[in-house]
């Protein structure tokens, strides 16, 4: 027995020694070097821009690659590789003149051929790109994507090394915005072919033409770095030497690290956000996203407009975002998120605001509910509320269930919080009463949202149908596509119909609260598309 005890004591001492050693050797990070330590909440799954599907990949691509344009503050189009753009009078041909001074990290020059190669590769069905649909509208893109035409027929051509000509099937009013999205960035053919199936699976199997080069990424690890690139055409405006990313999936861990100075920025959970609101460094990042109800309108109860209205009206969206979410999310004014698009100084969300459709009104809700129940000939109603299994989704369903059951007589809500894939599957197969869906815009244009609810769109899982709405959306794409004012009015009116009819009920527009050290300056965050642009970011003082 004694022996065992001594051994135990010895091992404890050894542990302590190791701990202290580890503690002593870790010197605190350099003070005012141009280095950032940034928290990510998920792994970087791929750097192959044809295959990327997630936020982390797109953000990393956005900072390591350069496309025709780079999106600046508020999705403003800033010069990238294109120095001059000529649009034909019918709006169907774009001619980009490219700069000659940008190089790939392997020393090759960035040319128009790299764009042609990249686009063809993404559209090639063999590549299995999940974002190829964004090319829709570019000549033959859809047919190529569906394997009906060869990739050579895509409407993109290199005219010499420094001229890129793109032809469209129909006008795309937001075409320039799309060019700032990583799926449209160039790829270096030599690199892709050299690494084959390994391409984009680790930092060494890649080639970059953007402000930073990716390093220390093995493909599956939890940390990686962006190092300032020497080949970048505008390297003089890049101030940071490096950005170190660390994946911490637990918000409390990340905040502990932030407090101890190991991280300069981290996102917060809803509860953390509530507690840290108002502290120095507290930052809210809006996302161009909408969370909304879809009612299963193959069921008679949800074909009844009054019932839909009543359900929407018992939800106090303001109390919900402030007290329950508390992370800077804002009550939805409509489906299209605020700050996404403006015309003549007016926000789209304000222009299409239907107050009645998204405001709490318990008295009216009760009345509508009673009338609605009478119309369908029932005195009580039990229905399912389907949603994701995330923390926030659970809080949402709990809050909504409470609001409905406490205010609407005879209503019973069965919450089902299931994994994302299960939720999608049930939604697509119509196995739900009400489902809380979410949509994030890929580019800053209202059509990114409104397109979903035309009668036969596959995203319209609730099967809401409105001919007038369909016509307006169609007009915005065809007859009015070249006329910005008319197109704007079409879309505004379409959204008004959608909300008045409660084809869907918008809930909130998601935001994420962050703690960012105040010394970090010049971070560009866009609510749609690739979110972060660190090109002009710097660290000031301490």
């Amino acid at each position: 027995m004694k022996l065992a005890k001594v051994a135990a004591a010895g091992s404890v001492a050894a542990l302590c020694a190791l701990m202290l050693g580890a503690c002593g050797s870790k010197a605190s990070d350099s003070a005012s070097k141009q280095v950032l330590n940034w928290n990510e909440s998920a792994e970087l799954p791929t750097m192959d821009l044809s295959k990327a599907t997630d936020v982390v990949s797109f953000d990393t691509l956005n900072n390591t690659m350069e496309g025709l344009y780079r999106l600046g503050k508020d999705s403003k189009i800033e010069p990238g590789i294109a120095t001059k753009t000529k649009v034909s009078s019918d709006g169907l041909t774009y001619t980009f003149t490219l700069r000659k001074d940008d190089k790939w990290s392997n020393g090759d020059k960035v040319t128009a051929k790299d764009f042609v190669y990249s686009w063809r590769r993404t559209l090639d069905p063999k590549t299995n790109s999940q974002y190829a649909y964004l090319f829709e509208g570019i000549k033959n893109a859809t047919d190529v994507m569906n394997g009906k035409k060869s990739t050579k027929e895509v409407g993109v051509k290199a005219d010499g090394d420094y001229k890129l000509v793109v032809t469209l099937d129909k006008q795309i009013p937001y075409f320039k915005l799309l060019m700032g999205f990583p799926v449209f960035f160039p790829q270096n053919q030599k690199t892709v072919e050299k690494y084959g199936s390994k391409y984009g699976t680790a930092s060494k199997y890649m080639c970059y033409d953007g402000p930073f080069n990716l390093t220390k990424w093995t493909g599956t690890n939890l940390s990686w770095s962006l190092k300032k690139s020497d080949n970048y055409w505008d390297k003089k405006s890049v101030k940071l030497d490096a950005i170190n990313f660390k994946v911490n999936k637990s918000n409390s861990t990340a905040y502990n690290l932030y407090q101890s100075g190991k991280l300069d920025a981290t996102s917060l959970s809803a509860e953390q956000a509530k507690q840290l609101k108002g502290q120095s460094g507290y930052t809210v990042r809006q996302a161009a996203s909408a969370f909304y109800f879809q009612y299963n309108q193959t069921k008679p109860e949800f074909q009844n407009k009054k019932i839909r209205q009543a359900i929407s009206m018992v939800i106090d969206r303001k109390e919900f975002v402030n007290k329950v979410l508390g992370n800077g999310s804002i009550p939805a004014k409509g489906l299209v998120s605020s700050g996404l698009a403006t015309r003549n100084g007016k926000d789209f969300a304000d222009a299409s605001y239907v107050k009645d459709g998204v405001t709490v009104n318990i008295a009216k809700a009760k009345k509508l509910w009673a009338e609605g129940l009478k119309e369908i000939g029932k005195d009580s109603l039990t229905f399912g509320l389907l949603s994701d299994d995330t923390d926030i989704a659970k809080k949402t369903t709990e809050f909504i269930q409470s609001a409905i059951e406490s205010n609407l007589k005879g209503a019973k809500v069965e919450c089902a919080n299931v994994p994302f894939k299960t939720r999608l599957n049930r939604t697509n197969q119509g196995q739900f009463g009400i489902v809380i869906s979410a949509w994030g815009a890929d580019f800053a244009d209202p059509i990114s949202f409104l397109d979903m609810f035309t009668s036969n769109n596959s995203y319209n899982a609730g099967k809401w149908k409105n001919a007038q709405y369909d016509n307006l959306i169609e007009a915005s794409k065809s007859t009015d596509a070249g006329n910005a004012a008319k197109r704007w009015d079409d879309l505004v009116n379409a959204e008004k119909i959608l909300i008045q009819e409660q084809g869907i009920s918008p809930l909130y527009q998601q935001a994420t609260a962050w703690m960012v050290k105040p010394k970090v300056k010049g971070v560009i965050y866009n609510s749609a598309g690739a979110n972060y642009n660190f090109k002009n970011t710097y660290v000031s003082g301490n």
Partner: protein
Amino acid sequence: MEENLKLDPEAKVSPEDFQALPKEEELDAEKIAAPSLTFTQDAWRRLKKNKGAVISLFVIIVMIVVAFGSTPFINHDTLVKSAPKYANLPAKIPGVDINGFNGKLKQGGVWVDQYKANNIPEGTYFVLGTDYLGHSLAQRIIYGTKVSLIVALVATFFDLTIGVSYGIVSGWKGGMVDNVMQRIIEIISSIPSLVIVVLMLLVFKPGMTSIILAIAISSWTTMARMIRAETLQLKSQEYVLAARTLGESPIKIAMKHLVPNLSSIIIIQTMYTIPSAIFFEAFLSFIGIGISAPETSLGVLLNDGQKNFQFLPYQMWYPAIVLCVLMISFNLLGDGLRDAFDPKTRR
């Protein structure tokens, strides 16, 4: 004579000093002095002597009564009502002014009265504080205890029925039967239980049914393996061999000889099944397919509390304390039962 003995130990003892007892007073060597008790009576008598076990039994009974007795007061209708304006308030007990129980919460090193800071009307008390939707945490803990107890009981039930009998049969039969049965256990424990749970979501709704079935499928395998290992050892013991030789039926041997001798393993393993089951349920909630709102369980509460520990430590401490008290009681009672039932500790 007495004096004689004391003074002189060497004093001679003569045969005359002894007297023969009368014939009828002779002791009956075959008679058992203690009153005859059945197995259970005997166990109960010994259990009562164990103070820890008795207190634990009492605690468990109180918890069960409170948890299940609360059903008329704490049910779907009470749980579903939320009051976000009361969200995240710390404990406040009328007449108590100890920091932590008077509505104050430590924020940035200073105790701040959260009730005042949130303009909560005077006279509002939450004995254990509230959660993020303004539900009373006390109510939720009571309800959560009920759900966790149900999960624990179900797991124990399958452990004791399937697990024990499977293990005994496998160990006792040996040979091919044992071989097949062990391979089945390997297969069952290899298939990820999460896959099974996700599949169950297709058939059932998320909630108790799915959890119970998932537990039924996988929880008993460890018990079965432990029991088999012990049975292998026991069946070569002399008393089992003797019983076999005497032609006792295998079922009788199992009930009379094996189960009592396995009881310590059974009880300890059960004591570990209970927290494992409760944690399994919590894990399912962690990934979002456990109990669905507005219902809750201790696991869910702990998991929610864990995330806010930095700011609202009480939301983790209270359910953790309840769970610990429950577990300690179960275990001390288990120890008591083991000592009471196990023939090896009968002295």
